[in-house]
């Protein structure tokens, strides 16, 4: 099986690569288009800001490549947000795989922004079967995807939001499985064994 970790200006590529290495998974980090297209699985990581990241993807022509992939693709954190239609973060048009708008959390009493730390997954169904309801995973984000028809797991912070989504071959998580201890490793394994 060929697993590709998409190489671009994301901040967590190294962390994801170490997590895959800890799982004993063979993978390649690349931005080579043919190589990506011929992979069995593609992981689309992401830490950073939406508009600069989208500009980079467009410049490298990776935006259309990602959108047209047919194999299982996993978007992580900003990767998930960029899979949506539009982000309020610097008013950025994104990939449009999920027809949703990414919104900013509003800070409120006892609710700091960014939403940073370990929070629970609720109503998990679908693709990460080995992860029990109410498992804790690690989040760091100021923007979120509202709950929608593609949501496969929720989390709550001021309001319920999408912790995970799925549409066809596109899978996405808002949290960082690469930093979420055993629960995160199980989720990565679930994706890799699809």
């Amino acid at each position, binding site marked *: 099986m060929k697993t590709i970790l998409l190489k671009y200006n994301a901040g967590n590529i190294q962390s994801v690569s*170490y997590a895959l290495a800890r799982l004993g998974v063979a993978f390649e980090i690349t931005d080579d288009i043919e190589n990506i297209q011929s992979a069995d699985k593609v992981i689309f990581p992401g830490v950073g*800001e939406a508009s600069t990241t989208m500009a980079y993807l467009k410049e490298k022509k990776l935006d259309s490549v990602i959108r047209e992939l047919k194999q299982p693709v996993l978007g992580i954190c900003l990767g998930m947000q960029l899979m949506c239609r539009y982000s309020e973060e610097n008013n950025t048009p994104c990939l449009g795989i999920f027809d949703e708008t990414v919104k900013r959390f509003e800070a409120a009493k006892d609710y700091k922004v960014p939403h*940073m730390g*370990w929070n629970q997954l609720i109503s998990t169904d679908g693709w990460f079967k080995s992860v029990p309801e109410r498992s804790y995973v690690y989040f760091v984000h100021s923007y979120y995807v509202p709950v929608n028809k593609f949501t496969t797991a929720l989390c709550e912070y001021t309001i319920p939001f999408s912790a995970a989504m799925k549409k066809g071959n596109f899978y996405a998580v808002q949290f960082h499985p690469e930093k979420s*201890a055993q629960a995160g490793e199980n989720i990565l394994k679930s994706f890799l064994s699809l």
Partner: protein
Amino acid sequence: MLTKRIIPCLDIKDGRTVKGVNFVNLRDAGDPVALASAYADQGADELVFLDISATQEQRKTFAHLVKEIARHINIPFTVGGGISSVADVAPLLEAGADKVSVNSSAVRNPTLIDDLAKAFGSQCIVLAIDARKFHNTWIVHTHGGKNLTEKKLFAWAKEGQERGVGEILFTSMNHDGTKNGFAIDPLVKLHELLTIPVIASGGAGSMGHFADVFTLGKADAALAASVFHFGEIRIPDLKTFLKNHAIPVRL
């Protein structure tokens, strides 16, 4: 529900873990990678590594160490110590650190915060503030607590937030090393003043102190070193204790 975070802090000098008591006497508390893995396995929520190296040669050892830590542990970690430019941060994040903390250099040059937040995103920039209370004023100190500055804690924390840090790590120098509990009053004030998370540091001596820092001090996370390194408090025991006191923790 978002849980309160327990964060062991490891001071690193020349690739080894040390802990200052009141920022002066250093004791060796072991191998950083081994300690980090043990803490991750015990349920620590994050880790902080502070490089207190004095020489350039020791700093290179630290950068190498960050990579080793990232390879071995599956929870987030912050690194800090001696960071004074955007160029200092890039290799640490590339090595696998999730966040960096800045302290003295940000006091000297506050626009560094704007530059770092812009280059790497607010979520990975932590502003560490060491402050000591004189009469009724909390005064910011730099260089491991050695130098007194003109900055005051609350104004500086607020400025840090406005310039784009994602988190404040507040250490009370009055409490650090005493094991008499965290500085509750300034933490409450920081909580009311800020919309970003606050990590409390300095003074942890008992499990009750951790309960207090979350319930009374409203801290988002609590950081400690020697009580963990020397086995005085075990993280699984601490988390069970906090859970029994109705404080949300990851167990």
